[in-house]
């Protein structure tokens, strides 16, 4: 452990620590532009110069390029170093334009800070300033190249860290340019990080362009709820509107970056069409009136049909408080058990995943970056949980092998082996890899269940279509690796796959490898929903119950089944059959106009909440601001109204759990904070899955993982998928996520809608040939519910005999029958 003295203070740091990092640990901020903890050092900007007074060498050196070593004595305030840095700043400012007042980075600009603190004020150079033309880089990023100081952070991030090639450095020397070869939308779904990473204002946030200054924003630590990873963000709000979201450093989950879906997926919060008043039978009312009517009508139904005729459904975007309150109210009023997830299969898969997520196996997302073998089973990281793709890239950059077993045309920003297996074949395919990789000698030493599991892996039928050589190559890699990680999806996979992933990880661990397990789940709070939901209860079962007439009233709590349920006709008929449909939500979803009673709720940014991400990490989010109708809206684009009012307009909505609490006897008396604690006590007391839930105050800012009791005895019970993949000439339909456009909340963001390409249906080239279809053709799928029309994309890297439809709101895809997984080839036709 080298010991180093910086500015007369000594510190012991880990070997390999750069001097700039050692200084940071001491709280000394050495100026930097090109150095970034996630990107490392290149020593390009020359602004981190410090003077080495004693040690292996002396004189002015770049602190980001020198490893801390014993006997080093460093001064950051030495005259020579200060003068050096000052002149560096002056050079960097030679061509910097005089546009801070109209630059959105002004106020949080590293260059501004360094210039002011370095003491540079008047430009002495009399020459003209160099200028550049700017480029259109899509709806998210504004380009202003004049401001560039050539630190290369953007191209290093974009090409090295991020793995995309369409933005980089061009020209040379004094005329170096950072941009695309041709103007156009940036390809990377992580491009928003360029805004955070640029030390000046070359890349600025376009949706919030010219909205305000960083110092005016109410900045609050927040959480991304646009996928199950739960990345940390900073929400900036101003004038009662969330205007910007940035990445917040979290060493366990997302590191320094977030994806664009998370960065821009907040627009639903401040939309003009967001419902803010209660409604019953089309009349506006106060929340209290709405609640009174709701109670009265529920009582009427209880009187005629009994309390079991009422059901309540939540969704995986509910906060833990809401999820718990739904269950608590349903139990207290003896309604039907509440449904949280869309269908039985998902419920079963999520529940399995939770029950086998052993603390010894589970890894954090950042741990994936140090894995040396990652097997992705039935997950499409870039589309389902984009930041996972970035983690995989980091692993790959460090030499890991990435193997993806997925039927979809998976695309990752790194080199990987794709084995396009249909959902059932994932089992056999990956089983074969494991089976080949483990030596018989190793396996013989294992316990009986592990041995049995091992032999069952080989027993599977070889239904996959890929080459044996690929299996062998992967097996070879797996054999030599030390830290393999199984990443497993829960959406398109068969019911057994989550258990398979866990068992394989357990097997590898038993075989002496530091194996890890990582699930991707459908929705932010799917983990908590899975813990709370009963087996065989889902929105689908509720619909069946409505059709059978046993459920007469349905309360949808921040839940829009129309978005996810594949059979729109059926669900609409079911909703019409209801005597009472009550909806509480903070977005104007499709079910809101259908509701008899509507009660507005608050968003994550207004009420906060507890969220449990897919690895079981409990995270508490505090409200970002007080709520209310944005001033831009009350002022109608002009100045705010000239009236005195002590009341903020539009703060009537309450958190869903506060509204629900008023349906039982608690809630009226206690305030929001006490109610939160009360809900938590109830959870710990009455829900066995939550008995280890830490208290609100004990949850650290990074979140804390909580697990059920370790379940290692549950391993090796995984069964083979029950076949059913008989080839009858029909195409298997997979409804899948896309990075943009398929997640409900982020679909409200106009800028992301612009990014979401026109949704298209994917098909393997062999099927397309057979059907006489070409890439780019407009095709129509004639289904029972209606016709889905979209452009056809013919691809090679997917499983054949399969049709992939994105769950895109614009596509109107919900025309299938419940449980329909296959369509006949004659149902597909070309539209001229």
């Amino acid at each position, binding site marked *: 452990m080298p010991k180093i003295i910086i500015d007369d203070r000594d510190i012991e740091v880990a070997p390999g620590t750069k001097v700039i990092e050692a200084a940071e640990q001491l709280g000394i901020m050495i100026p930097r532009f090109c150095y970034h903890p996630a990107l490392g050092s290149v020593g390009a900007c020359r602004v981190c110069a410090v003077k080495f007074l004693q040690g292996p060498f002396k004189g002015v050196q770049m602190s980001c390029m020198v490893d801390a070593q014993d006997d080093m004595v460093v001064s950051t305030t030495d005259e020579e170093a200060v003068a050096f840095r000052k002149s560096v700043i002056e050079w960097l400012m030679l061509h910097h*334009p*005089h*546009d*801070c*007042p*109209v630059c959105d980075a*002004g*106020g949080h600009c590293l260059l501004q800070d360094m210039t002011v603190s370095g003491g540079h004020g008047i430009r002495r150079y009399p020459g*003209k*300033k*160099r*200028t*550049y*033309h*700017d480029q259109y880089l899509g709806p998210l990023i504004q380009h*202003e190249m*004049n401001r560039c100081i050539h630190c290369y952070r953007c191209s290093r991030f974009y090409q090295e860290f991020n793995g995309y090639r369409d933005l980089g450095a*061009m*020209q*040379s*020397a*004094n*005329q170096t*340019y950072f*941009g695309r070869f041709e103007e156009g939308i940036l390809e990377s779904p992580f491009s928003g990080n360029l805004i955070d990473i640029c030390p000046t204002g070359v890349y600025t946030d376009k949706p919030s*362009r*010219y*909205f*305000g*200054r960083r*110092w*005016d924003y109410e900045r609050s630590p927040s959480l991304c709820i646009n996928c199950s990873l739960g990345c940390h963000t900073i929400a900036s709000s101003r*004038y009662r509107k969330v205007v910007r979201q940035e990445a917040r450093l979290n060493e366990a989950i997302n590191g320094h970056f977030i994806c664009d879906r998370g960065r821009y997926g907040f627009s639903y919060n401040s939309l003009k069409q967001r419902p803010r008043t209660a409604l019953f039978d089309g009349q506006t009312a106060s929340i209290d009136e709405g609640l009174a009517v709701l109670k009265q009508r529920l009582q009427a139904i209880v009187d005629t049909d009994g309390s079991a005729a009422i059901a309540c459904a939540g969704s995986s975007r509910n906060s833990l408080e809401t999820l718990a309150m739904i269950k608590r109210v349903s139990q207290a009023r003896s309604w039907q058990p509440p449904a949280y997830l869309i269908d039985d299969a998902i419920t079963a898969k999520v529940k399995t995943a939770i029950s086998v997520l052993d603390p010894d196996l589970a890894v954090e997302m950042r741990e994936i970056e140090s894995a040396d073998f990652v097997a992705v089973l039935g997950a499409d990281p870039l589309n389902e949980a984009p930041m996972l793709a970035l983690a995989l890239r980091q692993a790959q950059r460090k030499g890991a092998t990435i193997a993806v077993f997925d039927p979809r045309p998976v695309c990752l920003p790194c080199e990987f082996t794709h084995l396009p297996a249909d959902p059932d074949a994932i089992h056999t395919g990956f089983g074969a890899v494991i089976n080949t990789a483990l030596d018989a000698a190793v396996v013989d030493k294992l316990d009986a269940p592990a041995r049995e599991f091992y032999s069952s892996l080989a027993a599977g039928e070889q239904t996959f279509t890929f080459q044996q050589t690929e299996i062998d190559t992967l097996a070879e890699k797996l054999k030599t690796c030390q830290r393999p990680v199984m990443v497993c999806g829960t959406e398109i996979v068969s019911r057994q796959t989550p258990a398979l992933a866990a068992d394989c990880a357990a097997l590898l661990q038993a075989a002496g490898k530091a194996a890890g397990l990582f699930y991707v789940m459908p929705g932010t709070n799917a983990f908590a929903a899975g813990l709370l939901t009963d087996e065989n209860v889902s929105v689908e079962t509720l619909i069946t119950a409505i059709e059978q007439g046993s459920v007469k009233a349905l309360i949808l709590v921040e839940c829009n089944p129309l978005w996810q349920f594949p059979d729109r006709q059926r669900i609409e008929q079911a909703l019409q059959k209801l005597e009472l449909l009550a909806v509480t939500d903070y977005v104007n979803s499709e079910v809101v106009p259908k509701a008899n009673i509507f009660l507005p709720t608050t968003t994550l940014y207004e009420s906060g909440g507890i969220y449990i991400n897919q690895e079981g990490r409990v995270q508490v989010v505090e409200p970002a601001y007080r709520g209310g109708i944005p*001033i*831009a809206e009350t*002022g109608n*684009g*002009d*100045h*705010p109204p*000239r009236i*005195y009012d002590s009341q903020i307009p539009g703060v009537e909505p309450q958190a869903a759990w506060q509204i629900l609490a008023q349906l039982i006897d608690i809630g009226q008396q206690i305030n929001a904070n006490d109610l939160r604690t009360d809900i938590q006590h109830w959870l710990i007391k009455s829900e066995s899955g939550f008995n280890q839930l830490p208290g609100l105050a004990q949850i650290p800012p990074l979140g804390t993982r909580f697990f059920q009791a370790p379940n290692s005895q549950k391993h090796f019970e995984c069964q083979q998928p029950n076949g059913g993949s008989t080839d009858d000439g029909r195409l298997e339909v997979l409804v899948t996520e896309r990075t943009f456009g398929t997640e409900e909340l982020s679909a409200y963001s106009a800028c992301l809608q612009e990014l979401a390409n026109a949704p298209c249906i994917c098909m393997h080239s062999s099927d397309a040939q057979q059907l006489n279809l070409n890439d780019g053709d407009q095709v129509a799928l004639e289904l029972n519910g209606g016709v889905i029309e979209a452009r056809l994309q013919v691809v090679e890297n997917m499983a054949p005999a399969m049709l992939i439809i994105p769950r895109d709101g614009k596509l109107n895809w919900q025309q299938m029958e419940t449980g329909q997984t296959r369509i006949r080839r004659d149902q597909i036709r070309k539209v001229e």
Partner: protein
Amino acid sequence: MKDAIEAVKALAIGFATTFKHLFRKPITEEYPEYKRPLPARSRARIILTRDPDGAERCVACYLCSAVCPVSCISMQSAEKEGGRRYAQWFRINFARCIYCGFCEEACPTSAIQLTPQFENCKNDILSFVYEKKDLLVDHQGKDKEYNFYKYAGVATDVGQKGEHIKEERPVNIKSNLP
């Protein structure tokens, strides 16, 4: 004793001085009858000026509202056709303003200026809240020359890239020449 005499002497001088003042003409300027012409840089009512071309100078950079010690300035910036950044609305609460002039000092575009016009007393407190239309004037104020967008380097209707003062033509990025 000497001290006592000194003290009495000092007291006597003091009393004599004030007594003499009794017979001097008061130097008071009586305000409504006589209005002293104030220097151009005296600090009273705030205005938003225009640049020599007649366009609004304010770019809504928020520096005045940031520096304002009583937080009496609020605004909303936005983008105009032609690429200029401007204040969609701009509000000064003169009931709160202390006329310290920090806003004028902070203003990078010479837009916000204090004028010597100090007689703006009103009964209704809401009428002290000035909106942009009340603040915007049709002249350049004290700074007759400055036009921010001619120096800023951002492309607007005032000038495209490389057309501003002291700027080179934009770099041809597809050339290999240094």
